Every structure is written in C-alpha cells, then in structure tokens.
C-alpha cells in the first residue's frame, strides 16, 4: 500500500514538476537511473525472500546512485568516462538481470 503510494507520488512529482536537469548533471542521470533500478530490483527480490529491510534498501539505493555518479565523475576527470560508464552498466546490468531472474523464480516457481 505504502509502496504503491510512494511510487505513484514519485511518478506524479516527476511528471508535474518536470524539472530541468542542469547540464553538468546530465551525464550522471542514466547511470543514476541504472543504479536506482538495481536497488529497486534488489529490494523486490529481498521482499520476496522475506529478508527485506527498509534501511538496507534506502542506504543501498542512495549509496548505489552516489557511487555510480562518483565513478562516472572520476572517469570524466581521468578521461576514460565512457569506459567506466560502460563498466557500471555491465555490472549493474548483470545484477539487475540476475535479481530479475530470482524474482521470476519466486513468482512463477520456474
């Protein structure tokens, strides 16, 4: 219930406010989204395995987004921006995929 409300609230806030992301922050947005998706899928899987913990969820979400953005920032400064972003996308992509597979196993027992 609270989950649904929170998601609806976030989506409406995003749609209503339509904030313009500052140009400096735009490179970090896709990576931040991938990190957020990773945290979300991890949370759902943990919930299905009945070990969900809200504190771990929030901390992992904020931590993931920050670390991912930091790595992209570092990559930019070191001149290897694209490569490091690719690395993050690969790592988080694999995690998302395997979490999604675990969720699928829980939901459909297959």
């Amino acid at each position, binding site marked *: 219930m*609270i*989950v649904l*409300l*929170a*998601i609806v*609230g*976030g*989506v409406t*806030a*995003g*749609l209503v406010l*339509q*904030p313009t*992301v500052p140009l400096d922050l*735009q490179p970090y*947005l*896709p990576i*931040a*989204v991938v990190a*957020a*998706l990773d*945290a*979300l899928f*991890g949370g759902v*899987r*943990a919930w299905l*395995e009945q*070990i*969900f*913990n*809200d*504190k*771990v*969820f*929030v*901390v*992992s*979400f*904020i931590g993931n*987004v920050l670390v991912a953005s930091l790595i992209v920032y570092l990559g930019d400064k070191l001149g290897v921006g694209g490569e490091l972003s690719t690395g993050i996308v690969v*790592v988080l992509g*694999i*995690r998302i995929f*395997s*979490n999604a597979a*675990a969720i699928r196993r829980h939901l459909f027992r297959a």
Partner: protein
Amino acid sequence: MSLLVDLWTNALDPGYAATARSGGRPGSWTRRVVPLAVGLVAASFLVVIAAVQAHARAPAAARAHERLVAQVQQESKAVADLSSEVDRLRAVTGALRDSSLQGSAAGAALSTQLARAELAAGTVAVTGPGLRVTLDDAPATGAGQGNQGQGNRVEDRDLQGVVNALWASGAEAIAVNGQRLTGQSSIRSAGDAILVDFQPLRPPYVVEAIGDPVGMETTFAQSAAVARMRSYVQLYGLRFGYARASGLELPAGVEEQLHDARPVHPPATKQSTPNEKGSG
C-alpha cells in the same frame, strides 16, 4: 570468469542477508515506513525525470541535426553559386583581355601564346577524344564490418596512381568527376572522402583524359597502376574499367594565383641565358 560468477550469484545486496541474520528489526512503524517511502519516491522520481529528459532531448537532437544538414546544404549551394560567378567573371575578363590584345600585331601574337599557355595549364575548358576510366568502391557487403568496409574502398592512392599513369600515357588534359586537374591540383583523402582540389568526390570516380585514344590506351593498359587496380578488383572486389571515348568535354580548372613565386630568370632573357652561360 570468477568475477562474473560472483556478480551473478551475489546479485542481492549482502546487507539484506546480514540484517536478516542478526534478526533485528527496528521497532516503530514510522521509523520503518518513512525511509522506505522516501526511498521509493526518490527512485521513481529519478526514473521519471530521466525518461522525461530523454523524451525532451531526442527531438532537440533531431532538430539540431536537421539544422546542421540544412546549413551544410545552404553553404554548399553558396559555394557553388560563388564558383559559377567566378567562372562567369573569368570569362568576361578573358574576353576583355583578348579584345584589347587583338588591337596590335604584337598583342595578337601574345594572345595566341597566352591561349596556348592556358591550354597547357588547364585553365580553359577543352574537348577531344580520349579515355574514360571508372573506379568504384566494392559493393556493400551488408554486414557492418568496420575493417572490411575500409579495405573495400577506392583510396586516394589508387586515384593518384591512375591519374599519374594517364599523364605518363600522354594525356593532355585530365578531369576527375568533372574537377579539372591543373599543375597545382591535389588528390588526397580526408576521412572517408577523396578530395580533388579540396572538393569532396563521391564514388564512382570517373577519370576523363583527353589524348590520342589508341596510343594512350596501349600505354595505360601496360602501366603498373592498371595492374594494381586489376589485382584490387580480384582481391577486394573494387570496380575498375576504362574505355575509349570521343568528344570528352573537360571544364576549365581553377587558375591559381601565384603571389610569391617569381621566375628565376625573367622570361624576356630566358632564351638567351643558356648561350651566355655557355660562352662565359
């Protein structure tokens, strides 16, 4: 490999398992729900603004691309207009010069000399029989193979070789895709395009050379450039061919203005100079 296996098996944040093992759930309802709600709101907010951003930016990128394309076309048209204007003005000055030179006998002699020099320098349009050589890239292989695609293109060296072979076979005037070659022409590549006198060409490349068709063809056919092109046809699938042609029309080349170069011996004394040196 172990890194990938590790990633796959430990996809879930280890924090969940750790807190589950320690078994401690913080007591109050608000302390559990508020952070969760804040986290979810933040996560969905982030996803939505990213989506909005991507949606808003895509048309902007397309618009910028369109604007650039339009700008390129407009500027190319301006260049074409200006060069046709230059051609027209050059014709006018040529006619004026001829009419003022025709006044005297010395002027008339100078005029014919000038006409011959212009013909040799390639700054007047010419017509005559000759050879037409066609070079083209290999047909697209379909699959996007980067290196393969690079290998199957006509390169500036090939075009240079063919043009040099034509000059060596006795060509008197040569044009590549309608670009007349003069003493200061260059054939080189920039990126994927071959430039002749800084004008990018698009394949197929048609080299038209005016000269004695039979003699030129005989010599050209035996040249190293043709042998090389034939092997490229076999190896890389490039397309290459030549045929005799009559009534080729080559446009005038761009007349280069020499600003700093001066003859070592002034033209008037040039003929007598060797004799003087021989006797002295």
